[in-house]
């Protein structure tokens, strides 16, 4: 009989199962090679490739992510009302699969911020190397590994999942649902992430070095790279599976679990944004999975998808890859658009201007997002006729984005603006994202792209969009919902300090990159010509300050979570449903499902009501003079 710790889900069993997974990989490889008559019987690379797939799955089984489904599959009676493993009882609960969307939301957010710090640290190492021309700290192989892992981690393990985490926490509350539609799938989605992250970081320990082909992992470079590449190829599958599962969960939750009365046009825009994002994820993510499976088959089994000598098509990789990865840019933007809409309406005390247009523009971006992938390939040597149509669609996608910017500006017009930390980050986002959008339109223009593609101009553009865009919205969202998630208030002064230092050093870091890019400095180089030395030193110094500014945020979050003043249920006097329950909310969100009777942003409208709670209380804009203010302890 097995010892108890191995029969019950948990970390002991997970560790044991991981070992079992590795043993399984050995056995499978040995058996297959012996059976096929290969000699020597043992091949390290073959074992590693199988183990990279098997060990994580065994780990997840050991941790108990599949327990309920195995129970059900074995034909035992189903337990429809089983809520064991729902809700956190202590900080230890966060280290086990949990079916509570709020616990999962926090797991997501904290884990992805851990990866933000790791990815940021890699950026610091790169900037240290780039501070001067020539070689100082790392060799070219390590440098290539650093920027590849930096980008992959920040894209696949920070931006995409942190949005999923924030939405996981607040979205069911916003639509008046007790949980997500598939709580166990939700738990599995989260646990796939640390697995992907560990795989990507572990690649640094692979023989031959980490994967170093950039986050785009263009074939055939990725086909011929050392074994570290497979850590990316397989890591992306886990991150992608997580993302698809979450998106499905969101779609079903939003479509089927809205509180009575919450029509689509009474949904807060954050819900709209996640609805659109989930559509993108479900349609697009399988493409990156495919591209990486093709690479895996090329590498492991000698297929010739991308091997020109064997009849493969090198450009096909880029078409399939960008068919995911361009929409992925919107996967990294749309949830942020939702966050900004929430914050601007509440902090301006005004309804969102042009609510329906805001919703439709999200859907327009979803549709157009699939028609622009080839603008990444203007100099790739693909067929030339497609370039001009792609230029037009790429430029036109700025129209729905512009509609959103103008609507936000109109929302603020004549409002009563509360310029606290979430609002400052929202305003910072508005300006910085506009700049990133403008350079995006410039990049749509083929003749310009021919010159600046693969230069620091692109590096500047992508960071204005993903740092000045996505990360600013993430900060805004984290500050905004911090009281709801933790039941505590953050330190406003540190928050403002964090905003201003981030804003200033962000610009000092990335703005000069436009200059050196247009002047001809290629991206992804460990070394560069003398003439770029001055700007690179300035950029490196600014980037270190930018890195340090993150520590203010981390300090503020940790200290405020432990001992900040208690938050009241609705410190911002917001209308949406998540603010009508206690901070943090009860385990099943609402004692009884509320009924929605009006729009989510009816500030300044006398008699407007958004919803009716179970006790008959109306969710209406707080009348003047009676608002609850955050209490000080």
């Amino acid at each position, binding site marked *: 009989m097995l010892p108890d710790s191995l029969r019950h889900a948990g970390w002991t069993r997970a560790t044991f199962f991981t070992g079992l997974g590795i043993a399984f990989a050995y056995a499978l490889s040995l058996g297959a090679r012996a059976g096929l008559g290969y000699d020597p019987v043992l091949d390290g690379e073959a074992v590693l490739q199988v183990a990279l797939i098997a060990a994580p799955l065994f780990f997840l089984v050991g941790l108990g992510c599949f327990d309920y489904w195995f129970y059900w599959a074995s034909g035992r009676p189903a337990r429809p009302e089983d809520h064991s493993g729902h809700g956190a009882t202590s900080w230890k609960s966060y280290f086990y699969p949990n079916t509570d969307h709020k616990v999962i939301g926090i797991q997501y957010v904290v884990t992805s911020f851990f990866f933000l710090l790791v990815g940021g640290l890699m950026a610091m190492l790169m900037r240290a190397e780039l501070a001067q021309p020539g070689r100082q700290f790392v060799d070219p192989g390590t440098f290539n590994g650093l920027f590849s892992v930096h980008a992959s981690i920040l894209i696949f393990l920070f931006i995409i999942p942190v949005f999923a985490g924030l939405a996981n926490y607040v979205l069911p509350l916003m639509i008046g649902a007790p949980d997500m539609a598939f709580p166990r799938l939700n738990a599995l989605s989260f646990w796939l992430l640390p697995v992907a992250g560990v795989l990507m970081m572990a690649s640094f320990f692979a023989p031959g070095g980490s994967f170093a082909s950039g986050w785009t992992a263009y074939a055939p470079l990725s086909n011929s790279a050392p074994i570290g590449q497979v850590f990316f190829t397989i890591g992306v599958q886990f991150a992608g599976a997580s993302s698809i599962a979450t998106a499905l969960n969101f779609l079903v939750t939003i479509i089927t679990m809205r509180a009575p009365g919450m029509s689509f046009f009474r949904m807060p825009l954050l819900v709209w944004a996640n609805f659109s994002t989930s559509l993108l994820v479900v349609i697009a993510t399988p493409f990156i999975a495919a591209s990486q499976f093709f690479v895996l088959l090329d590498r492991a089994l000698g297929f010739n998808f991308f091997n020109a000598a064997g009849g493969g098509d090198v*450009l096909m990789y880029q078409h399939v890859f960008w068919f995911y990865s361009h929409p992925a840019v919107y996967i990294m933007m749309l949830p942020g658009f939702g966050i900004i809409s929430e914050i601007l309406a509440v902090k301006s005390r005004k309804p969102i201007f042009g609510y329906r247009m805001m919703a439709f523009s999200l859907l327009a971006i979803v549709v157009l997002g699939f028609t622009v992938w080839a603008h990444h390939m203007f100099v790739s040597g693909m067929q030339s006729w497609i370039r001009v149509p792609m230029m037009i669609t790429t430029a036109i996608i700025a129209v729905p984005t512009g509609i959103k910017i103008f609507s936000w500006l109109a929302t*603020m017009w004549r409002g009563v603006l509360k310029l606290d930390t979430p609002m400052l980050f929202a305003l910072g986002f508005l300006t910085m994202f506009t700049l990133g959008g403008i350079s995006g339109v410039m990049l749509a223009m083929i003749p310009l792209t021919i010159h600046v593609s693969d230069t620091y101009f692109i590096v500047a553009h992508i960071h204005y969009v993903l740092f000045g865009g996505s990360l600013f919205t993430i900060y805004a969202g984290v500050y905004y919902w911090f009281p709801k998630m933790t039941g505590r208030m953050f330190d406003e002064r540190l928050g403002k300090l964090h905003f201003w230092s981030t804003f200033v050093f962000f610009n000092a870091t990335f703005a000069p990159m436009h200059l050196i890019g247009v002047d001809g400095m290629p991206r992804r180089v460990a070394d560069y010509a003398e003439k770029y030395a001055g700007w690179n030193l300035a950029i490196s110094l600014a980037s270190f300050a930018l890195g340090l500014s993150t520590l203010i945020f981390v300090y503020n979050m940790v200290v405020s979570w432990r001992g900040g003043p208690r938050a009241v249920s609705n410190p911002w006097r917001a209308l949406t449903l998540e603010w009508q329950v206690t901070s943090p909310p009860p385990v099943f969100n609402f004692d009884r499902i509320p009924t929605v009777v009006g729009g989510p942003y009816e500030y300044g409208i006398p008699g407007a009501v958004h919803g009716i709670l179970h006790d008959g209380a109306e969710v209406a804009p707080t009348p003047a003079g009676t608002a609850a203010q955050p209490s000080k302890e």
Partner: protein
Amino acid sequence: MGGETRKPRREAILLTAAIGLVLSAVGILIGLWIDWFPAQGSTQADDIDTLWDVLVICSVPIFVGVTAVVLFCAREFRQKPGEEHLDGPPIHGNTKLEVVWTAIPALMLVTLCGYAAVVLSNIEEAPASGQENRVAVTGEQFTWTFEYTGADGTKFSTNQLYVEQGKSVRFDVRSKDVIHDFWVPEWRMKIDAVPGITTNYRVTPTKTGIYPVVCAELCGLGHAFMRQSAHVLPPEKYAAWMQRMTERQTAGAAPAADGAGGQTASADGKAVFTQGVGATGATACGACHALADAGTSGATGPNLDEALAGQDAAAIKASIVDPNAKITDGFGEGIMPANYAETLTPAELDALVRYIADATKK
């Protein structure tokens, strides 16, 4: 509620609009004044730089406008003490306004696209008259090889690019291994070198001089160091260079010569090691290899003091001519250019081998 107090002051709007206009103008002037691009080295560069100026003129007012509204709102509508419970006026939308800010940007963008399409067809157009030079470009980890055809049909190749001023040249770009990207920033044009297909572009160089050839597409370990030079020669010098290179090829091992007229028959091994050979573009060994005697410290390849210690001249020569035959532990195959037998004359090669053999014996 509070609609009255939230009316923006008329003079404040006018003032902001005025400041916005001035800042837009200043921004445009700065944008046009900044020397963004490297020198204009081709007829294509002119068109592209003009497109950039147009984009700057269109972009600055949009950014300034958005920023001005944000700052105006932050200043004018900021919550003042005593306004904690005030709400803004419940404006839900304005169809006319929404149509306007959808239609105007769409029109602007389509117009810009039309202009960009015209520029694109201009920069890719073949010369209306006259013959076009052609150079076959081959990328490999981590070097470029340029192949020319002389007037008599003789083919020869170099590692430094030579082109003729004022004459359109078409590059047919190939790759031997992974994707590279052939780019001379001064010419503004670039195209990927893709295994399995031949890509191309053309430029008409306008300025003589030496410009960097850059690989813009991540191609592996030596990506950052895959840099060579493009020499733009006036027509008569180009013709003379062509002549010499053709003769050198047909004569087999004729005296080395380059465009600037530097090399001589009795090649200096140490110079080849530290500087390479300009005419054919044989890259300097010292760029990648450390060698105490030469004072180089490159680390992309093995340290020669260690790797070649105790080897005889024949072994050293074999390692230069066919670098993939024997690989030092810890380094990958296919990183060192395998074409030194083509880009060095026998005399240069022998001098180089003699020098390295001497230097590593010490």
